[in-house]
């Protein structure tokens, strides 16, 4: 069951990333439906900072201890990806919706890999 979910999430991530890649192409192909473009340059990094601040306030041990154990490495990788995406969004002005789609899928992947729910 969990294997199927991870495969699906992997496909979702690639499709979201694919939309970002299409937007970077000089000649974006014709399409009757386009993901509405919201510039994520500032919004996404701001959302990430808010999330981090909230977690530090409510679960002070999350970044100092919780994610550094043997079982919780997927969560550490999730935060790494979230930060990399923030930098890329800032530089390349990524569209917000695919970025949020990707991040949600990465979060769910980290939850599927270990089931401790350490964002509590």
């Amino acid at each position, binding site marked *: 069951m969990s*294997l199927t979910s991870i*495969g699906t999430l992997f496909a979702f991530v690639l499709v979201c990333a*694919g939309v970002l*890649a299409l937007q970077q192409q000089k000649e974006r192909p014709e399409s009757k439906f386009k993901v*509405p473009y919201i510039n994520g340059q500032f919004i996404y990094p701001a959302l990430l900072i808010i999330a981090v601040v909230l977690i530090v306030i409510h679960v002070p041990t999350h970044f100092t201890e919780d994610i550094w154990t043997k079982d919780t490495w997927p969560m550490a990788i999730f935060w790494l990806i979230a930060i990399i995406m923030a930098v890329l969004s800032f530089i390349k002005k990524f569209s917000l919706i695919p970025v949020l*789609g990707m991040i*949600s899928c990465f979060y*769910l992947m980290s939850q599927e890999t270990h089931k401790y*729910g350490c964002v509590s």
Partner: protein
Amino acid sequence: MANQLFRKKSITTILRDAEQGLGDGHGGGLKKVLGVRDLTFFGVAAIIGAGIFSGIGSAASSGGPGIIFLYMFTAVACGFAAFCYAEFASTVPVSGSAYTYSYVAFGEIFAWVIGWDLLMEYAIGNIAVAISWSDYFTNLMTKAGMHIPDWLTMDYISAKNGFANGVSEQVAAWTNAPQIFGFRIIMDLPALLIVALITYIVFRGIKESRSASNLMVIIKLCVIFFVIVLGAYYVNPGNWSPFTPEGFGGIMKGVSAVFFAYIGFDAISTTAEECKNPQKDLPRGMMYSLIICTVVYILLALVLTGMVHYTKLNVGDPLAMVFDAKGLKFISGIVAVSAIIATASVLLVFQLGQPRIWMSMSRDGLLPKIFSRIHPKYGTPSFSTILTGIVVAVRLYS
């Protein structure tokens, strides 16, 4: 070499290949018959499986009534992904789904990886769905007083292993099974039959598949609607306060179960070449099916947590449990029948999706040509469809 691996296909080439794929064979190609209603129903068919009741029950038991916020949040997250699928489906209306989209965006090597990822996902998923269909069916038959012999309801390997480990059901199956030349006949007959039936419908044509899917979805939604309306009479609002007894952490514990409930809307993008107007209808079909399912899940979660205290919901069949407690025993029978239909509809959409991804991979030369052969009369990828059935059936037997 590196260029070869990252070779991308232009959208015009992909569309032209698809056109040619439609043309070759002997006259007939895929049939363009699906409209937005059919696509929405395919989506609902794939998303709402039989597991929804137990999924809602287990998520609600850890998070309380506030679990509906998680359903909303997950729907939005899936909605973001659905937006991206929709853009691709409208840009490259070809049956390969994420496989074709990756080919356009990232090149052949990514497409190859995601193609196999999708095939594994579909194959494992279909087998699991077929087995759970068999379980629901066997249980219903037992309830109706017709017990199917154990050796006809499980696969050979698990019977053998279970016998070695002394699991009572498996031991009974192993010892009672008839033997031919010393070889015990043990198989999951209900699962094999449903796979054969579904494969036949999918092989026979997209129109037949559409009718079957629409019918099953209508039955499924009617049962759910009936359950919600009936359950609403028994709701005690006291059970809803406090609304989020376990806080944010308790709600987030259900995140995997809730996400699993939304898987499947992407499968409809594999029917792109059978839509009348894929560029407009596919995006809509995905969105509508996500919205319908979100509303259904939220209402069901509210009814379940309103009827009994959320802490009692962590059981295999919470719906039957809550209605049994109110003295409405017949509900569990209706739910059991609808579970069989719901599971069959999930299997139908996934058995429909897999051969179409094979077909797209074969056109690009990543699989032998025979995988993209279209049946001259029925207009379906004939070889791939039958092979899809065989792959699941073989796994069921061994």
